């Protein structure tokens, strides 16, 4: 049965990138202000805040971030909880918001997420990100976050003939889309040649296969059916939601060419919504690395296993293709402030679905899917959204 009560009535993000001179809480407050007072939702209407952030402990030496961020953003006193699932932190906060609305405990809630990553060195950020993998059995032998995806890439290349060039084409598409997105970290197209520059991070993944280190925040407001119309004429309904996990260790997974948690989460979300991949007009997927977008496009059922690379080559996932993926530029080119990404994805769906994505607007925009995953696929969240009037 589709979710009954959950509507998105506003959504906003800060610019992503190196936000010089601004702290985590200032970035967070900017997104909250845009999604509340900036969108006609008074802060007094917000009854609870569900906040995603991955690793402020290591990046800015701050835990207990939810009340801190909520208070700074003028949401003093509200129940404010932080949700952490590595790169899926944002989407797990969103799911908490969904359950809060569906349970009837709250009418209107804020879901917001932020990460401040650029105040530490690249090695230190790499170390913080490695906390998303298994410290005892992976990170402690020097396996990195890109390294895990590189291992998946090598398996995918071997099994399906995916090439380094296919991966590079994902980066080229991401930059092409982001070039029109004023909130993106990189607003410049890149050539295939440039994307293929052999600067290896974790072979065979090169610099341009990797999403950057970014600061940023995003926020949305969820409300129930009764209240939705008081904020907007075009609420977006979340009709299906799925979350699944897998073993943290890549070595314990059944398959290296598919992320089982993504497959399971999307199946649950489709079943709940009563929809299939064919019904999706577009998708926003978790392209932390180029290979991750290819695998995700297969895992969510847009393409058969192994057919993801071909879809990229043939432009099927381009903005004007049959199944646009990451029409605003994805993590790769818009940036990846880790914990914020899941909520930013919801903002992208919201803006595209209501037809306010500007130069990045996809032509068909009734129904879409977001796919956010955590770490190396140990957490996956899939949400299916639909314009209320669609």
């Amino acid at each position, binding site marked *: 049965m589709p979710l009954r009560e959950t509507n998105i009535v506003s959504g906003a993000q800060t610019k992503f990138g190196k936000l010089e001179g601004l702290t985590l809480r200032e970035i967070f407050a900017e997104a909250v202000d845009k999604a509340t007072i900036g969108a006609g939702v008074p802060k007094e209407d917000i009854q609870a805040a569900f906040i995603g952030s991955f690793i402020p402990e290591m990046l800015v030496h701050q835990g207990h971030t939810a009340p801190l961020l909520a208070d700074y953003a003028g949401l003093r006193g509200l129940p404010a909880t932080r949700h952490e699932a590595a790169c899926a932190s944002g989407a797990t906060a969103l799911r908490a918001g969904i359950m809060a609305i569906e349970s009837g405990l709250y009418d209107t809630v804020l879901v917001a997420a932020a990460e401040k990553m650029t105040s530490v060195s*690249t*090695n*230190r950020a*790499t*170390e913080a990100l*490695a906390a998303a993998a*298994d410290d*005892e*059995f*992976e*990170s*402690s*032998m*020097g*396996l*990195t976050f*890109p*390294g895990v995806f*590189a*291992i*998946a*890439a*090598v*398996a995918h290349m*071997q099994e399906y003939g995916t090439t380094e060039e296919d991966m590079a084409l994902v980066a080229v598409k991401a930059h092409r889309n982001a070039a029109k997105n004023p909130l993106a970290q990189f607003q410049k197209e890149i050539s295939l040649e440039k994307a293929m520059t052999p600067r*290896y*991070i*974790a*072979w*065979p*993944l090169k610099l341009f296969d990797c999403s950057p280190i970014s600061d940023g925040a995003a926020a949305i407001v969820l409300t129930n059916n009764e209240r939705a119309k008081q904020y907007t004429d075009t609420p977006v309904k979340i009709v299906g939601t799925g979350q699944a996990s897998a073993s943290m*260790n*890549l*070595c*314990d997974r059944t398959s*290296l060419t598919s992320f089982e948690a993504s497959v399971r989460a999307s199946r649950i979300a489709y079943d709940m919504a009563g929809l299939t991949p064919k019904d999706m007009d577009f998708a926003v997927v978790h392209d932390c690395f180029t290979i991750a977008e290819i695998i995700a496009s297969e895992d969510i059922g847009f393409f058969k296993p192994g057919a993801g690379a071909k879809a990229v080559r043939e432009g099927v996932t381009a903005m004007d293709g049959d199944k646009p993926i990451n029409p605003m530029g994805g993590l790769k080119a818009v940036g990846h402030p880790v914990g914020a990404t899941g909520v930013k994805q919801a903002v992208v769906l919201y803006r595209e679905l209501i037809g306010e994505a500007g130069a990045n607007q996809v032509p068909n925009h009734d129904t879409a899917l977001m796919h956010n995953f955590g770490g190396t696929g140990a957490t996956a969240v899939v949400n299916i959204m639909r314009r209320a009037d669609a």
Partner: protein
Amino acid sequence: MSETPTIEQYQKYIQDHDFHALKCKSCGAVIAPPKGMCYSCGGTDFEWTAVSGKGKLVSYTVIHVAAEEFQEETPYFVAIVELEEGTRITARLLGLDPNEPEKVKLGIPVKLGYETGKSGKTYIGFSPA
């Protein structure tokens, strides 16, 4: 308590160049790295078992950008190896040139060994058999 396999002991075995896996007392499944419950049968009683050390290479990468602690060791291989006993583990790859990763073939037989990194820590590693 002392006979129950622990993660601490698992790591110690590796530091001692004496790798041991867990064996499920209910179904005999060999498990490494350690788990609190057997994936095969749901059992929670384990004992230590030695392994043959034979396996095959499932996939791998070469790390160029690492956490500070490991940056000095780059470039280095990290691989997933499937042991003859059926379980898969993450390990270093030994005896191969990390500057020519494309020459490594998936599926090749490998055998268990150890490597001591610049940090002084010992890793499990596998070299071509």
